[in-house]
């Protein structure tokens, strides 16, 4: 049986006890998936998995708190579930986890760059083992999946769900790239270049908060300090400085909690490469605290605890 059939069987076996099971279906066009909330066996027919199923469905879990739901997760998404469990933001007994062994997902941005015409004009998509055949504006193009894989998949060391009630698919031996070229290149830039880059991109930001609301770890949602008057941290004025201030709030509240699922960057309607910030913060967290959010159950986020002697924080001499 295929991975999808196995998944359907597993879901079917538990659907009766659950409010719903969150998976994916095809979205508004053949190139886009969208979350699917499976409430009946009939809904199961629409279930899809594969390289287009990009959404991190763990984002929805806190919204179902107190109810029993199922969720389908890729390896990366499972880290978000673990982090939510570790922070007691969801209850393990309330969630049935259908874990996938994931072959990676696509980056819509990279697909756009690789196609001869904008993916808005897509007509059909055929998913092969390692390729994607897309017909767009009358022209057919075959993309190697490797070429359009999401950045996070290139450095992924957890393709298989780390926590699950059902683990579906064949286990992988992860082969992550040591780092991302785009990240290394950006970090190598001068302060002035980086500063100008953020000035410009934050000038484009419309502060729609898609990055925040798509983030599985942003659990404040309605009570985010970026949109409150008391406390008043950020002006409503759409200035680059205020937009950057919001991003700094986001990154600071995610320090030691971010599972690098990439949803913030994927959600951004104006394509701001927010993962440059996230990956950099995560690197610092790894360096100082040897901590990776979502990698193990029963970890405490490093900023919620301390050591009397910090081996890796050098007190600077004055």
């Amino acid at each position, binding site marked *: 049986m295929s991975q999808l059939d196995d998944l359907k069987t597993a879901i079917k076996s538990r659907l009766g006890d659950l409010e719903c099971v969150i998976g994916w279906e095809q979205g508004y066009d053949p190139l886009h998936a969208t979350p699917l909330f499976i409430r009946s066996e009939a809904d199961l027919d629409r279930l899809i998995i594969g390289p287009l199923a990009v959404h991190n469905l763990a984002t929805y879990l806190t919204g179902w708190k107190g109810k029993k739901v199922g969720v389908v997760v890729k390896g990366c998404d499972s880290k978000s579930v673990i982090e939510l469990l570790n*922070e*007691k*933001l969801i209850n393990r007994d309330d969630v049935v986890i259908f874990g996938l062994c994931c072959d990676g997902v696509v980056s819509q941005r990279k697909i756009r760059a690789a196609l001869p015409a904008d993916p808005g004009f897509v007509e059909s998509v055929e998913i092969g083992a390692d390729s994607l055949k897309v017909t767009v504006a009358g022209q057919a193009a075959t993309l190697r999946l490797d070429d359009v894989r999401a950045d996070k998949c290139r450095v992924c060391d957890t393709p298989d769900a780390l926590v699950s009630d059902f683990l579906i698919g064949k286990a992988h031996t992860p082969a992550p790239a040591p780092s991302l070229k785009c990240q290394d290149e950006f970090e190598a830039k001068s302060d002035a270049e980086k500063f100008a880059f953020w000035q410009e991109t934050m*000038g484009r930001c419309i502060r729609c908060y898609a990055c925040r609301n798509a983030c599985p770890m942003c*659990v*404040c949602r309605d*009570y*985010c*300090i970026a949109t*409150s008057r*008391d*406390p*008043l*941290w950020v*002006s409503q*004025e759409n*200035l*680059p*400085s205020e937009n950057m201030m919001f991003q700094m709030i986001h990154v600071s*509240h995610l320090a030691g909690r971010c599972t690098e699922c990439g949803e913030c960057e994927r959600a951004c309607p104006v394509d701001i490469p927010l993962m440059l910030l996230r990956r950099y913060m995560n690197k610092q967290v790894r360096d100082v605290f040897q901590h990776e959010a979502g990698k193990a159950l029963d970890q*405490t986020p490093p*900023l*919620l*605890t301390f050591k009397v002697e910090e081996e890796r924080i050098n007190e600077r001499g004055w």
Partner: protein
Amino acid sequence: MRIGVFICHCGSNIAGTVDCPSVAATALTYPDVVFSTDTMYACSEPGQDAIIQAVKDKNLDGVVVASCTPRMHEQTFRRAVERAGLNRYMFEMANIREHVSWIGKTKDLNTGKAAELVRMAVEKLRRNRPLMAKRFETTKRVLVIGGGVAGIQAALDCADGGQEVVLVEREQSIGGKMAKLDKTFPTVDCSSCVLGPKMVDIAQHPNITLYTCAEVESVGGYVGNFQVTVRRKATHVDWTKCTGCGLCVEKCPSRKHPDPFNENLCNAPSINIPFPQAIPKKAAINASSCLMLTKGKCGLCAKVCPVKCIDFEQKDELVNVDVGAIVVATGYDLFDWHKYPQYGEGRYKDVITSLQYERLLSASGPTGGHIKRPSDGKEPKNVVFIQCVGSRDKSVNRPYCSGFCCMYTAKQAILTKDHIPDSQSYVFYMDIRSPGKLYDEFVRRAMEEYGAQYVRGRVAMIYPKGDKLVVRGADTLAGTQVEVPADLVVLAVGAESAKGAVQLGEKLRVAPDQYGFFVESHPKLKPVETNTAGVFLAGACQGPKDIPASVGQGSAAASKVLGLLSKAMLESDPAVSRVNPARCVGCGKCIQTCPFGAIKEIQDRFGNPKAEVIDTVCQGCGICTVTCPQGAIQLEHFTDNQILAEVNALCPPKMFANFE
């Protein structure tokens, strides 16, 4: 709001380098400021009256005083605005003395800085709100840590004042350093005759519970309601039965470990009562040398004990004590003089410390009060005293003066002559520090009546010559080098902080200074208070002190405790954290990080988890406020908006510009 601003000249302290009238004029351009003036001394009675009058005349509902540090006078002015009918939290201070006038040289820059600090205070005040203190009950019991003379005095005074006292002492007996002394300066009266009755009082006082061989394990809670755990170390003797008869001490066959009470001048039995006047007079077994406990055979003491109180199985015991206040009187230790190469680093048996010398002088000491030098037991004729060993010396990180060494050296010189009339004492000194009643007269007596020879200069080396030690040093007054053949050399070793003081300070949240002595709340005005409410200092744990000063501080700390516990209820600081339940998502991160357990989880009426602050337990640190990502828990008086207002006052946000 209607805010009044008062710029203090502090005589010329501020006005000397800050244009106070100009700052007052600038303050009038700040939002909500309706009155602004400069004043000569804001803290003086007329100064405070002027503030009160202005509040009434100008109908003010907030006051800013720009003067000295709020650590000095914030309470003063809070009380003043309270007298004027305002809530005490509708007041802010700008520190334009310690942070401006005293550190900056340029008047116009100072003036500009002062004006900005006032602006910051005004912007914060605009976001202040009246806060009301909560009242809570206190535990009427005092913990005194340390049973030296300071702790004894504090315990007795508290107990006499009607409070229950728990006295915890690390050693087997109370008495501390003073119990080891032979005589005391400047009266040369018998140390144990003075201290002994007080020790007996401790044992007999109905209000005092004494734990010796005990240490403070942990401290929780807050002023009025501390929870303390005391570790009572195993003595292997059941003290409820032990009569202190001493039979076991006599019979103990293991006598190979040095006797700490006698400063290791002699050995002690493994089961011992340290000295005849010990309180409590109970025997205790030294587990590291006892044959039964180390090798599993002997048990002689158990056989001879008439009341069968020996218990080789005894374990440490943890005792929980609730107290309302704590007096720390942990004393001092002696500097380890072996660091000095010039004194032989311990190679010469006849180089001893001043405290060892006290034991040699003492009738209850190892020599029965006859001065015999350690090497051969001979009576010394030439005794050389070297002062400032581990005092006033930067090279060993002891730049401070220990204060009492000059006096006890003079005393020891006098006693030497008393004991050995044909002896000659030499004292190498740097300066003579003898302020105090009858102190300088006492030193002069040592020189003039007892013929002690004082040599001003440092000792360069000590070397053996025959059965003598030659002390070579400088005589800076004569400008020559001197060599004195000595039978015995006594080092006036300085005081350093007691071992374990830093660790105890961590438990008590009392900071030690760089040398490990505890820091008092204010060096002049609050010498026995600490920055942790309800914890007081007595004696040499705060800095080297002689006996009268230690006793004085013991009494002072006791009076502070009695003052504190005499109130039926205490008021808590209302500047504590508060949860906005509408914003709280119940994630519990604040509960996780609170060091005081001051936040608990409750359920709202819909069953949603929410955080709630226990007002009287909250200490107002604000860790939770930073932890909470939604800003749902705010530290009153230091809310996000208040601090952001200060930031924005200093760094105005970019506005009035539309970029597209």
